[in-house]
């Protein structure tokens, strides 16, 4: 935990949170006939796990500011994707976001971190967010890059793998960033800044029924290329630096002996016999 600082004044502080909708991580998505997309008919769509942590952290910052009596920051959720991502944004509103922005243009679809980062950066700039929280890595593409692209395009300080956040003054934020091997570093970033939040920073809350009812009345704005002032060729598939040309199920095997189809007791006996031969018992 970071030590408490003096209360700061932050009239009109705006916090943006990037929410990506991804296939449920317990499922095995099938490859579509195109060979380069996943078959999304049977997919159960959820909010990417780190993004729930980013949203939770934003809610905690809003609550901390309220408690310190320094003005309630506004919390805006952003999501780029087809019509289905409205459900993810409604959930963010139910959890406590004040309003949501859906980047919904058909031209936004099929992008990579560069293309999506460009569109999101334009939307975040338009909303004049002082602090942006995103996930460290999406559960589907796992590029770990979209927030860095947003920061780079907007010319803002950036940190990846953020494990604690505190607004210390109206113009800066103190954070803990994870390093390899379990050590951490404490950093100060000037606002406006972009932070990519790592899983485990907090335990995301569940939406209440009351929250879900309130969410229906909160504003959910839909924006396209024209609203954001971006060229169609700069975003989506056309604006991506990369093209996915094929998807494959990774080859299994290559490992050792697989004990399959036995009753638990039999499998356990067999495994112990092997461990005994390995001189481990």
């Amino acid at each position: 935990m970071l030590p408490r600082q003096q209360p700061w004044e932050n009239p009109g502080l705006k916090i943006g949170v990037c929410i990506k909708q991804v296939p449920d991580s317990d499922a095995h998505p099938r490859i579509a006939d195109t060979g380069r997309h996943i078959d999304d008919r049977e997919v159960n769509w959820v909010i990417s796990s780190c993004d729930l942590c980013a949203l939770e952290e934003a809610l905690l910052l809003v609550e901390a500011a309220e408690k310190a009596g320094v003005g309630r920051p506004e919390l805006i959720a952003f999501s780029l994707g087809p019509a289905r991502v409205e459900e993810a944004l409604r959930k963010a509103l139910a959890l406590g976001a004040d309003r949501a922005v859906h980047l919904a243009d058909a031209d936004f679809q099929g992008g990579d971190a560069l293309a999506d980062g460009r569109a999101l950066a334009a939307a975040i700039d338009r909303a004049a967010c002082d602090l942006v929280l995103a996930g460290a890595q999406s559960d589907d593409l796992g590029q770990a890059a979209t927030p860095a692209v947003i920061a780079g395009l907007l010319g803002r300080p950036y940190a990846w793998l953020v494990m604690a956040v505190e607004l210390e003054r109206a113009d800066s934020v103190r954070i803990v960033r994870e390093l390899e091997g379990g050590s951490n570093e404490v950093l100060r970033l000037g606002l406006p800044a972009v932070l990519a939040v790592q899983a485990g920073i907090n335990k995301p809350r569940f939406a209440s029924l009351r929250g879900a009812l309130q969410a229906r009345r909160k504003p959910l704005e839909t924006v396209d290329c024209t609203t954001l002032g971006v060229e169609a060729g700069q975003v989506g598939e056309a604006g991506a630096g990369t093209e996915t040309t094929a998807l494959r199920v990774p080859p299994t095997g290559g490992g050792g002996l697989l004990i399959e189809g036995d009753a638990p007791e039999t499998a356990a006996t067999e495994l112990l016999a092997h461990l005994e031969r390995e001189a481990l018992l």
Partner: protein
Amino acid sequence: MSRTEPVVWIVENAGSGPGSRETLACGRILGPDLRLALLDEERLGPYSPGVYAEALGALIVRENGDGEPPSTVVLLPHTYQAAEFAPQLALRLGAAYVPSISGAAADGRGGLCFRRSILQARLQAEVRPRTRAVVATVQSGAFSSDEAPAPPERVVEVCLPADMEGQPERETLGRMAAGAGGVDLPGAERIVTAGRGVGGADEVSVAADLAAALGAELGASRPVVDNGWLPREHQVGSSGHTVAPDLYVALGVSGSIQHLMGMSGSRIIVAVNNDPEAPIFSVAQYGVVGDLHEVAPALTRLLNERAGR
């Protein structure tokens, strides 16, 4: 040298982690014109992503000289530092960005192709850059360092562009080492690890019981720790402990690259997982496909019977 072949930059010293030999081995696949850029904190000043991306980007642009820039690949090891600033390097160079690659191919006519995992290693994607420049980070363990060529003779040290000096965009206030907390995982000869598949804080006992029966320490995958089922000091993986016991038993662990980075040096790896396609099985010497809540208690019972307990 063929004109269509790219200039391949190997970036060395971008944080701790996998060495440059794997990156060199990858670079050799992409083209014969290898160059080495060295990041040196003494020369560059304290690390921050914007500054390092700008410094490295400016160097590559300068080395390209005037006229049409050659097709360029910049390869960095996928360390926490490189993964943080590489997307901004790609922006600086107008390059495509391909993170954490596990495979690379070149057709000799300028066409490049990379392989990377998506959907948490459930699928592999073949990715092609659509630009003449590409920045890619190399996943640890994906390329054999035995196949690394000799490093190029000319090493270019990255310096700070003049207009950037004295403008830290972020300031480091301090460092905190990992807490030990009375768990000796690195020194353990046997480890039983609970993965997210154990299902909850109350179920971690299936792993703890087996660990006790084997005389092993108790390990955890990151989600188990993130969910508060076990304290952080039990975590194995790139952001936790690196271990190499005689016996490593993974219960309900899928086998993500970040987990494997912490335990693939174990002598015998045993995995229990109910998904036969779980990547952990490709590194395990012995795998049991089944419900860990049935298999682990059976193992514990048999071991306790043997010991006369």
